[in-house]
């Protein structure tokens, strides 16, 4: 056990799982000699060779599409999509092919395939690198969507995703790669999909987040605690499968819910949560559920992204107001 950044935890997971299972191959843009633009695969090619860690031509469609073929051939590919913003170039392969092949072949072809992709903003990237597009993929039956917030979870959830016979989109917070640092066991372990993590226990408001937003939620909860408001922060960990019992348990306790995400408001995964919670927990609710999100506008250039993504001050102000709303 030692303190590791999320990127180190991911790299350690890939290294250990590749060592354990010779069927695992890593493909993607710049994953070889460079070790990926964020170094998630640093050193893997030197360790496992060019056949198992492959620098692919710059074409997301065939990176994902050929990954399907690799999986059918008996391998367990881990695909790195350099940024989720480029995932649209492969969207037809992910949405219609990856997610459906098992169903379309009536179970003949499982796809034990993981697509890892950094997403979200806050690090001043060039345009089109920072969108939080997770809702496109949660609306895709057949595809599991995982979004860890801590280094510990990143390692354990990635190991679980790689062991899973269903395709998994594994979303990694761009901003959390080096910022997130926590105690991570050196040995292999798994964190199950579909079990949320209570990042902070509280009694007044349930604040639901995933990925990089969990950190914002926790910092806001700390400030709100100083104001005498006790916030329970839920880190969903995976969006599909979704831990509905875990959400119900918290909401039945607090009766007040705020959902925080980086994606734009309309059609964001927060909408799904609001609908689910009002259906499952209607009589526990003391006031309307609020969503704290980006506006319904395109992700802006880096110079103004702090105005776009919900920050701690905004969460403190909106969740504080929610806590004070009378029943």
């Amino acid at each position, binding site marked *: 056990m030692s303190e590791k950044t999320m990127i180190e935890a991911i790299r350690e997971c890939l290294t250990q799982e590749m060592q354990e299972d010779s069927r695992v191959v890593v493909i993607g843009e710049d994953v070889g000699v460079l070790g990926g633009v964020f170094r998630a695969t640093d050193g893997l090619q030197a360790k496992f060779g060019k056949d198992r860690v492959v620098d692919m031509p710059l074409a997301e*469609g*065939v990176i994902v*599409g050929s990954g399907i*073929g690799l999986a*059918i*051939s008996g391998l367990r590919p881990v695909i790195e999509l350099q940024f989720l913003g480029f995932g649209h170039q492969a969207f037809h392969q992910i949405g219609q092919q990856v997610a459906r092949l098992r169903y379309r*072949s009536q*179970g003949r072809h499982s796809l034990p395939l993981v697509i890892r992709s950094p997403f979200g903003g806050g690090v001043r990237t060039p345009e089109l690198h920072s969108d939080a597009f997770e809702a496109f993929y949660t609306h895709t039956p057949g595809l599991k969507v995982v979004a860890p917030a801590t280094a510990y979870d990143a390692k354990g959830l990635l190991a679980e995703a790689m062991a899973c016979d269903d395709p998994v989109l594994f979303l990694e917070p761009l901003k959390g790669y080096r910022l997130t640092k926590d105690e991570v066991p050196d040995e292999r372990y798994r964190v199950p999909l579909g079990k949320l993590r209570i990042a902070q226990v509280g009694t007044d408001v349930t604040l639901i987040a995933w990925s990089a937003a969990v950190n914002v939620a926790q910092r806001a909860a700390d400030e709100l605690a100083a104001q005498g408001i006790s916030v329970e922060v839920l880190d969903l960990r995976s969006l599909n499968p979704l831990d509905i019992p875990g959400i119900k348990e918290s909401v039945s306790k607090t009766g007040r819910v705020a959902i925080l995400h980086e994606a734009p408001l309309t059609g964001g995964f927060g909408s799904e949560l609001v609908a689910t919670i009002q259906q499952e927990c209607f009589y526990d609710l003391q006031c309307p559920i609020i969503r704290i999100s980006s506006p319904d506008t395109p992700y802006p250039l880096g110079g103004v992204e702090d105005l776009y993504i919900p920050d701690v001050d905004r969460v403190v102000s909106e969740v504080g107001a929610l806590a004070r709303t009378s029943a």
Partner: protein
Amino acid sequence: MPMLVGAWNSAHMSISRFLPDFAPIAPFSRLSESGILDSGSAPMSDAAVIEALRYMVLTRVFDDKATSMQRQGRFGTFSSVRGQEASVVGAATALDPKRDWIVPQYREFPALIRHGYPMENFALYFMGNPKGGTIPPEVNMLPMQISLAAQIPQATGLAWGLKMQGGEGVVITFFGDGASSEGDFHESLNLAGIVKAPVIFFLQNNGWAISTPRESQTAARSFAERAIGYGVEGVIVDGNDLLAVHEVTASAVAKARAGGGPTLIESVTYRTGAHNTADDPSKYIDQQELEKWQQKDPVVRIENYLRSKGIWNEELAKEMHDSCAEQVDAAMNIARNTPLATSDALFDHVYAEPPQRMLDQQADWAKRNGGVL
């Protein structure tokens, strides 16, 4: 091939250009239009030709039956192979079903049947029953592909993966002239060239993408020559000549198996039927051109070849037709007598490990109408 490659030559202030206006290459063929073999030796034994002809006749019988059932409301929208039987069968007979894979589009009925896909499953698929998608575990194929060209990257990855694991399998993927305009086609040829994947890109140039003529797909003189740009070998073959298609594909398979990498085969043929049962080609097709191609019927051509060898006659043809009709009727009967799917057909096989939420929905759906759709 004409010389295309040159270099900037500053001394002469000239720019070498990559000109597209070289003379088109005649497709490789072995049989004359009247079915006479050229002076070389036949690439298939007589028995193999007769077996291939049977798949061609079987296809015609199936297409007629399925189309007539569709008209009576007993079969879904369906694309026949008509006119392309030699193209599909010539390619398929070059494969070893035990180790080679087919990654189909949806107009390759005889290739799938020869590879072991049950005919009743093919029928069930077009009757709208998800059970039709069932591929027996020993049959090396992917499901039919409706999103055109999406299968091409998958075939490339599959071939690459087989090679990585030291296998001897070769993958063939089928698609048309229209699908070759998709990015997936180009991205796949590019990758296959780089990793030397044992894959055969079998492009059936049948003249049409629904109503869009081949000329509107590309300004290139041929589809085969696009291979050059990806460092891949391209071949153009007369798709209505069973022997030529078989020979070209067999040589591409042998090359791929020996580690020689991918081949793009352009099989020049013609869709003499409609795009599918919902299509009305009279709105766009040139009647004279259609008649010209009908004269080149691939079944007649290979029958003439067998006649020229003195081993074919009307009686044998009728016997073959009748046995094919029996086989098709039997498959259609199995399909028709297969119970309708229950609501579980919406949920089964979506996940290996289903999320609870979907399982709850599955239980709800099963409760309604007893789960019968």
